[in-house]
């Protein structure tokens, strides 16, 4: 069924009681051409593009919980393509282009809202760094504008411009950045993939990887029995090391917890996405009115899916420093998600050193914006065994060859990226 104004109207007349499920909740078959482990945004998008772009429809997504129960449903929904390095920027811009056509491609309202992403600067050095990043973006054909203090004030007059230690000096704006509704992105990809024949199998945890006597992948072992597969793609976000260990691999990744927060619903007040340049705080406002904000990862290895109070305090202090009015809003909820922090802060989309096994990992705290391009490029790799032109830098062996993609220049300290 395609969504249209006509069937919306028809369902309205029957009181919206006749809608049917958007996608099939499948049971595992004996085997598939491709099995994708992980029903987050990346796994779902990969399956959709495998079917849509490459015509490979004998595909299963195997998810241990429910789709979107991981980071795909826990993130703060920011999308942007404001990277500085040549290995990253074309990929994230490809993702932005896919976001711009996503709702038409999926026939689903993902609430993609290009309301702008503004990174504030508070010193001359920071302005220089943003000028450089903005120029790098423009060289890749991406929109970037360096704003002075008055231009920033016109956008967000409520901020504390005269903070004694960190006065706001200006900012780097990507007008095409913004937010998308994370759950709708998952459901939209699930619906579109399912319609093309992909099996979405929930409550199915991969407990082992099956290989033949040459060591090539033949399928996965799950709590619902073995599933044969010609190719196996891993897209398990914060759990990549655990899955890789099933194949005897160690990855350049640590798992860390990232927290996020939402306030009670308020009238529109935050115009887009705003990031504080002098502390760990960023904020946007959801369409429901909640202020959605977050900060830094907790900074120690974790698989707990919940964080600790020092980061809550740090984030709230950042918020108070940047926009003191936020102290009047009540915090509704906070939660945590487990993210793969890679050794250079950038992702991996590559063959694993096991024939038939493919890696999609290391997304750190920024993989939501990557969802469409990650799916596109991972599907490309699975279907053609070659890297997509925008993802050639995301190799697993770059850590050995020295071709790191270290936007922040922190070196091999995952908790500092």
């Amino acid at each position, binding site marked *: 069924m395609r969504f249209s104004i006509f069937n919306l109207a028809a369902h309205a007349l029957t009181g919206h009681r006749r809608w049917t499920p958007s996608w099939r909740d499948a049971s595992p078959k004996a085997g598939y051409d491709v099995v994708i482990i992980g029903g987050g945004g990346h796994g779902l998008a990969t399956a959709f593009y495998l079917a849509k772009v490459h015509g490979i429809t004998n595909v299963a997504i195997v998810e241990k919980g429910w789709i979107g129960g991981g980071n795909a449903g826990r993130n703060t929904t920011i999308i942007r393509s404001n990277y500085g390095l040549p290995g990253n920027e074309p990929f994230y811009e490809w993702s932005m282009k896919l976001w711009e056509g996503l709702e038409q491609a999926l026939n689903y309202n993902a609430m993609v809202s290009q309301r702008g992403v503004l990174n504030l600067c508070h010193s001359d050095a920071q302005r220089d760094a943003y000028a450089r990043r903005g120029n790098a973006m423009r060289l890749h054909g991406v929109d970037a504008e360096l704003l002075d203090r008055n231009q920033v004030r016109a956008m967000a007059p409520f901020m504390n411009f005269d903070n004694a230690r960190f006065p706001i000096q200006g900012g780097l704006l990507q007008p095409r950045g913004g937010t998308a509704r994370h759950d709708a992105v998952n459901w939209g990809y699930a619906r579109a993939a399912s319609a093309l024949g992909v099996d979405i199998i929930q409550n199915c945890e991969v407990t082992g990887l099956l290989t033949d006597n040459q060591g090539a992948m033949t399928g996965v072992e799950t709590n619902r029995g073995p599933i044969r597969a010609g190719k196996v793609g891993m897209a398990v976000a914060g*759990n990549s090391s655990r899955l890789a260990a099933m194949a005897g691999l160690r990855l350049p990744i640590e798992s860390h917890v990232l927290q996020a927060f939402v306030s009670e619903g308020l009238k529109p007040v935050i115009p887009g996405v705003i990031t504080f340049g002098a502390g760990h705080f960023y904020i946007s406002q959801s369409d429901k009115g909640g202020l959605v904000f977050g900060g830094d990862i907790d900074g120690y*290895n974790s698989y707990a899916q919940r964080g600790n109070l020092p980061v809550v305090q740090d984030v709230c202090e950042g918020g108070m420093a940047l926009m003191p009015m936020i102290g009047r809003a009540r915090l509704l909820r906070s939660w945590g998600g487990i993210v793969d922090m890679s050794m250079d802060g950038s992702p991996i989309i590559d063959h694993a050193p096991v024939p038939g096994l493919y890696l999609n990992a290391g997304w750190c705290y920024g993989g939501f914006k990557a969802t469409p391009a990650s799916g596109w490029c991972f599907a490309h790799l699975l279907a053609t065994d070659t890297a997509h032109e925008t993802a050639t830098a995301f190799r697993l062996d770059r850590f050995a060859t020295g071709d790191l993609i270290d936007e922040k220049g922190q070196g091999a300290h995952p908790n500092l990226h």
Partner: protein
Amino acid sequence: MRIPCPHCGTRESQEFVYRGDAAPVRPADDGAMFDYVYLRDNVAGVMREHWYHAQGCRQWIVVTRDTRSHAIDHAEFAR
């Protein structure tokens, strides 16, 4: 999360700097350097890890902690 420093007693984790898994040991030959610098077991379970008590005794300590629950079993000096 509060960390039982063997010198200072139980203190807020804020006072410490995290360095990660205590298992990797700097190798003598360059060939093993890649493994030491980049690859991690990234254990889901009990892990021995380095913390530095920057705002306390300035000692490196090894904390035994469960990464699934954050429960800390004990801590000892790194050397």
